């Protein structure tokens, strides 16, 4: 018996010409030539060298790549770079205030030791910012539900929830 295969897990797409996009990241515009299949995540990491946005799965399953697009949290691995044209992207690198101070949630992560290895951390923080903005940080239980798209294999969850809860309480009008 013989077994014939290709290396493909799904359908293969031939590399074709690139397209020019302008990505607005953290208030700065970047003109890039990308392939149609280039994700926002790969564009950020491999092209713009904005390493803060992490790749944990590239399948929308872990949340490590969470960024804000027009203020809403998205998995950057599920957004094509060409779809991000004209949108405002905020990554962890753009979270500090104009005064250069840490965002209150970044501060709270430090205070509550909201991480160990730090790899899920930018995604947790961006997602936490979105969670608070959405008004989904009213209680610890609510935070746990609305943060469940962000996996932390080091298991810093209780500290992360404290950090988000405290920040939400502190920023409530």
């Amino acid at each position, binding site marked *: 018996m013989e077994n014939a*295969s*290709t*290396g493909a897990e799904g359908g293969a797409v031939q590399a074709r010409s690139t397209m020019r996009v302008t990505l607005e990241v953290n208030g700065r515009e970047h003109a890039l030539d990308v*392939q149609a299949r280039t994700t926002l995540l790969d564009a950020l990491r491999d092209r713009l060298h*904005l390493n803060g946005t992490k790749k944990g799965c590239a399948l929308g399953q872990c949340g490590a790549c969470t960024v804000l697009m027009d203020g809403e949290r998205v998995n950057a691995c599920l957004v094509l770079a060409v779809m991000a044209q004209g949108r405002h992207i905020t990554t*962890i690198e753009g979270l500090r205030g104009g005064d250069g101070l840490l965002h209150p949630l970044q501060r709270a992560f430090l205070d509550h*030791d909201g991480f160990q290895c730090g790899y899920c951390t930018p995604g947790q923080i961006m997602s936490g910012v979105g969670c608070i903005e959405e008004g989904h940080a009213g209680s610890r239980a609510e935070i746990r539900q609305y943060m469940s798209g962000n996996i932390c294999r080091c298991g810093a969850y209780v500290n992360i929830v404290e950090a988000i809860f405290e920040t939400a309480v502190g920023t409530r009008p």
Partner: protein
Amino acid sequence: MGAIGKPVARVDGPAKVTGTATYAAEFHPENMAYAALVHGTIPRGWIKSIATDAAESVPGVIAVVTHLNAPRLPWKPVDAAPVDPGEGEQLRPLHSDEILFAGQPIALVIAESQETARAAAALVSFTCVPSDGAGLVFDRARARPPSDGTRESYPAEWERGDAEGAFASAPRRIEGSYLQPRLFHNAMEPHATIAAWDDEGKLTLWDKSQWVDNVRDQITRNFGLAEDEVRVISPFVGGAFGSALRCWPHVTMAAMAARIARRPVRLELTRRELYTAVGYRPYTLQDVKLAADEDGRLRSVIQTAYGLTSAYEDYGEEVLDPVGMLYDTMSARTVYRLVELDTNTPTPMRGPGAVTGVFALEMAIDEMADAMDMDPLEFRLKNYAERDLKKDLPFSSKALRSCYETAALRFGWEKRDPRRRAMHDGNMLVGYGMATAVWPAMQAPASVRIRLFANGTAVVRTAASDMGPGTYTSMTQVAADRLDLPVERVTFELGDSSLPMAPVHGGSMTMASVGNAVAAGCKKLRDDIARLDGAEDGEHPVETLMRLRRDSFEVDGAAEPGAEAGTHSSYAFGAVFAEVRVDPDFGTVRVPRLVGAYDGGVIVNPRTARSQAIGGMVQGIGMALMEAGEWDDRLGRVMNANLAEYLVPVHADVEELEAVFVESEDRIFNPLGVKGIAEIALCGVAPAIANAVWHATGLRIRELPLTPDRLLMAEQAARTS
């Protein structure tokens, strides 16, 4: 200034919350190319043909490498590192047409971008011819002793007293079989290596590693290089839990690719590839037999483990180590067997061996307590071992009794109704369970280089690693403490093989190994400065340097295990208490609360230590309730090789976690008095939860994870019987 024992905030925290901590895939050497892998699809056989022209013709593809055109590496023999299996031969990627497991890399595409490399990899076509191998079905009838069955860490057989005889004659007996599935580390950071050769033929690797020195040594041999021709850099590791102990084949392939492309190449593994490119905790079946006197004294513990290994390497682990030492039992016997499958080789995962063995033993102990009508905690205390009966040595320290007491008190164990299925909260069945945690404390030789500056700062360097527990922070504290400097004035550097030698960052031994080297180095630095001409008695070394107009002073320091190994037995201990809520209609289990108390010796940083402990609890919730690599024994593949189907705990799965460190120091074990906490934090969690599920439901489910289908089936079986 007494920095040891203070809850110092992580020194690398600001880098981590701002996204500036740089992990392996994130270095961007100039002109870097990207690699992607093609994998074999059959579990055993050989490659008959492989066609690369379609991939090669894709614009942007630099090269396609297969066993047909890969450079022949020298593969100089290497003494197995302690992280490598003792027997067998590691996979040599792209070395021959032989296929040893499904998912084995058989080609490598190098391209200008990651997207192009991956797309082109999909165009490589090949034919394979299957052959007979070890097989795909885990069948204990095929079990055999480990090839090196005499090794002390996992002997094929071990016995103290006449365990079978004692079992046969004891008045109270239980026995059961326990299954722990294949478990995957699934650290959030995928493994990645960037390789760059310079003009002189020297190689730099930015790699995800728990042991840069080992990667250097391994790659040096694979490529026939000299030690100073390979440098491995790994300043941040995005979790690993054992997966980055070995030097895996992709590291060799990255270096190979960079040599072929004549430019730096990055090889970053996909999440799916992590299920075959690195190891996993092996599927292990265990039989446990316990016997006791009428008054609850253990007479016999007999535990047999059947662990999975690959057909090309003999991976064994110390599953049965706790059996002979955890309780004061008159006799004990262990049998360890391996079952080969055509699959990739397992590897240590947090608490390797002990986590598996303790899961079965601690469930069995609970069953025995129940059979005796004794409280599970009381039964354990009744059989408390004051001495290591296995090694026949006193413990260098053991505060397990105080772990039991502290955790029981914090948990409110006295509120437990001894009857099963007796506690309720509305419709929910409530259960309390507990288990013991244990891990052998270890220390290995380590060295550091310390430079003290006259401006009152110090830099400490070593080739150690920090995969998350806080090596950067705790070592900074040890140095600050011993140099009498504020923590902010000390910098600790790690993760570079050009720095002084450090042992593997695993087995809970970094604190004992590197920590004591830092302490010893600081002492040497102070002694040497005090001996300088013109030094004055009692002054701080910085004052001496200033007065003598010396900018700085540097020493090398080292520490190694002392002679206590021959005179004492050293273990870290813990006690874990779990509350569960089981929905009787849906079979779902929630863990609203875990309380753990740990004896890890001196705790250098209670804040990071707590994070490490609660992190272990979270992984334990995963192990108890959801984690399992689902093996297809016709195709030889793990079917759920991704984070949507291999479930790990998320925020919603975790509620209250409490970790306490009991008063403990072990100055016999090492001068700092530390024992380590990484592994005990996971050990014991799953059996505590399983025991709580039994208490809640009356169902003894001896197969992990305790998923709703298993609960409902057990419930049905209990009803019909």
